[in-house]
């Protein structure tokens, strides 16, 4: 089935690339969403099965695949709104939609792959399709963003490849050359620790470009800033989850070796540094879209702190990743409406949003509450569990510093959001502003509500899936 899905989606992407007819293009986009939905349902009924050797419908992959398929629908709707508003020419439209479909397909396949080299290949494909999306506007800024993204991602996929080479060296003694996660896990005690350390360092560093952690986070920020907002929503949510999958699956292998403590140290320090860097940038950022992107860095820092802490932290980390994807994508979808009203990204030129678009302002307000993990946000639950796991490990000082950093982030995030919502901009021309139709915000409300529902009252099968996905980790 996954073979049919990949072939079908690639065929749709290819035909989108060459279609110029408006009706045909949107029919194909709808068709690709249908294929995605059917594939997700099929995968749900075949949990645990292996297909085409390299793909497994396991719990972690399933959770993230469903998240992706849900977010893909509003992404398509908002892309439609975006394209029609900008009156894009048929060629730009075709390239945009084609890369959108390719990106979604590559991310889905990356989630489900059970072999580190296959995950790596699909990560490469996401770089290709994401760069086409980032370059959508064809201007100087877009080119700068694309160049930085492509270059940093090229270096990081090279790093992942070096990591894979070291991993194969570490496996060489055992007489096996199968790099699937299952085989690695089965032989985790025989792996050569020196090579495994090197492999983990390189693979971790490589995937941080997608995940958005120190050291490779910079490219992602520029990418989310310059890409059109509906595409930015995908880059800021589901693509980051692909980086998480890459690191997490390999971390499971390393955690079952004597290197567990060392790996916790590596992941924990990168996570703490990301949190610190995110705080520093959040305090001075004036570009709203980049502020959302930095907030993503902060959340991924929290997630990886949970992974490093272990215990209940593993469960909370996966939960946090899912909820963050819903919340952050809804903020990015909303950003486009904000831009249409004020025609600006800078906080100095945006204000008193409630007056011009009350529904959209509500989304921003609720999105702010959700992102900063205030109750009743679902993220509150996962963040609380992560803090509990850090507390359990006894690193009280770390916890205090992390909480202080988070307080600063909430303060500056709140300062900017309330400026947007209530404080009028001096000499702002109210004559020509666009009236946004309230229905365009419906999908954002639904995404935020999903995050609340999954966080506060998770359905039993969801809890089961989360527990399954972390069951291979020790402790």
């Amino acid at each position, binding site marked *: 089935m996954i073979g049919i899905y990949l072939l079908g989606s690639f065929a749709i992407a290819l035909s989108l690339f060459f279609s110029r007819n408006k009706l045909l293009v949107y029919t194909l986009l709808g068709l690709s969403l249908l294929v995605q939905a059917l594939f997700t349902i099929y995968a749900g009924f075949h949990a645990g099965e292996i297909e085409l050797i390299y793909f497994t419908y396991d719990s972690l992959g399933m959770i993230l695949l469903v998240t992706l398929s849900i977010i893909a629908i509003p992404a398509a709707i908002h892309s439609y709104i975006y394209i029609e508003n900008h009156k894009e020419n048929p060629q730009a439209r075709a390239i945009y939609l084609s890369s959108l479909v390719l990106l979604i397909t590559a991310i889905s396949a990356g989630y489900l792959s059970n072999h580190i080299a296959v995950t790596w290949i699909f990560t490469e494909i996401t*770089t290709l399709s994401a760069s086409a999306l980032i370059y959508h506007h064809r201007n100087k800024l877009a080119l*700068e963003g694309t160049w930085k993204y492509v270059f940093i991602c090229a*270096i990081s996929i*090279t790093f992942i490849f070096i990591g894979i080479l070291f991993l194969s*060296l570490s496996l060489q003694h055992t007489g096996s050359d199968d790099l699937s996660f299952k085989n690695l896990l089965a032989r985790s005690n025989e792996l050569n620790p020196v090579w495994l350390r090197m492999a983990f360092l390189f693979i971790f560093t490589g995937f941080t470009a997608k995940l958005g952690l120190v050291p490779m986070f910079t490219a992602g920020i520029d990418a989310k800033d*310059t890409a059109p907002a509906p595409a930015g929503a995908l880059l800021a949510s589901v693509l980051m989850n692909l980086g998480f999958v890459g690191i997490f699956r390999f971390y499971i292998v390393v955690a079952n070796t004597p290197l567990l403590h060392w790996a916790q140290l590596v992941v924990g320090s990168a996570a703490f540094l990301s949190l610190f860097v995110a705080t520093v940038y959040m305090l001075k950022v004036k*570009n709203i879209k980049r502020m959302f992107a930095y907030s993503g860095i902060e959340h991924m820092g929290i997630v990886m702190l949970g992974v490093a802490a272990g215990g209940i932290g593993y469960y909370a980390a996966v939960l946090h990743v899912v909820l963050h994807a819903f919340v952050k994508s809804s903020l990015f979808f909303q950003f486009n409406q904000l831009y249409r009203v004020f025609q600006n990204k800078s906080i100095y030129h945006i204000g008193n949003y409630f007056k011009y678009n009350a529904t959209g302002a509500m989304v921003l307000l609720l999105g702010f509450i959700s992102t900063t993990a205030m109750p009743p946000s679902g993220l509150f639950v996962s963040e609380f569990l992560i803090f509990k796991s850090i507390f359990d490990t006894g690193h009280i000082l770390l916890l205090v510093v992390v909480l202080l950093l988070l307080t600063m982030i909430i303060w500056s995030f709140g300062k900017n959001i309330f400026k947007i919502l209530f404080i009028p901009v001096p000499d702002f021309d109210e004559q020509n502003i666009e009236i946004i139709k309230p229905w365009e915000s419906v999908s954002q409300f639904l995404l935020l509500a999903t995050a609340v529902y999954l966080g506060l009252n998770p359905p039993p099968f969801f809890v089961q899936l989360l527990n399954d996905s972390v069951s291979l980790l020790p402790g």
Partner: protein
Amino acid sequence: MIHVLLIIFLITLFYMAIANRLMTYIKVLALQGVLLFFVVFIQLNEINTLNLILILLETIVFKSLAVPLFLGYLLKRNNITREAEPFLPNFVSLVITTCIVVITILISNTIIDDHLDKIFFVVALSTLFFGLYLIATRRKIITHVMGYMVIENGVFVLSLAIGNEMPMLVNLGIMLDIFASVLILGIFLNKIGDVFKDVDVDQLSNLKDY
């Protein structure tokens, strides 16, 4: 023989560290491709012939002909001045490159592994770090691309060390090589040269937080 080739490869890095002109960089890259061709020819004696031919073609056609010619064409087309414009003096570059090589040798001495010829490890890791150093200390964007190509060559050397056991990984490395080079060079050729007339990294600083 293989050791001689790899040591020559290492020496090309030193030459690159003190080279002044961009054309020299391109020639060194081509030379590295040729060296890799011979290394592959000697080292990979256990894999099937068809695969070997593919790898040989990649090194000789892609690494030592297509990429250097293409880079030379870019230099002409975009009227890039011939100096490399490093941030640091050449002497410092040479010292740092030496430090990189010495440190990788020290690291390799701490590793005990009978399966690996250590010289592969030393050459690959020094090439990798030298490539990163090259990217960090040169002003022009095209030298960043060249630094990336150097990194690719280093990765290729490392993949050859285990090429006999796992030919799949060498093929994956080739795929990465071609994919990333085409993506990067494609953007460079089509866009950067047209939009930014004087291709300097200082020009790529318009994306700001405020």
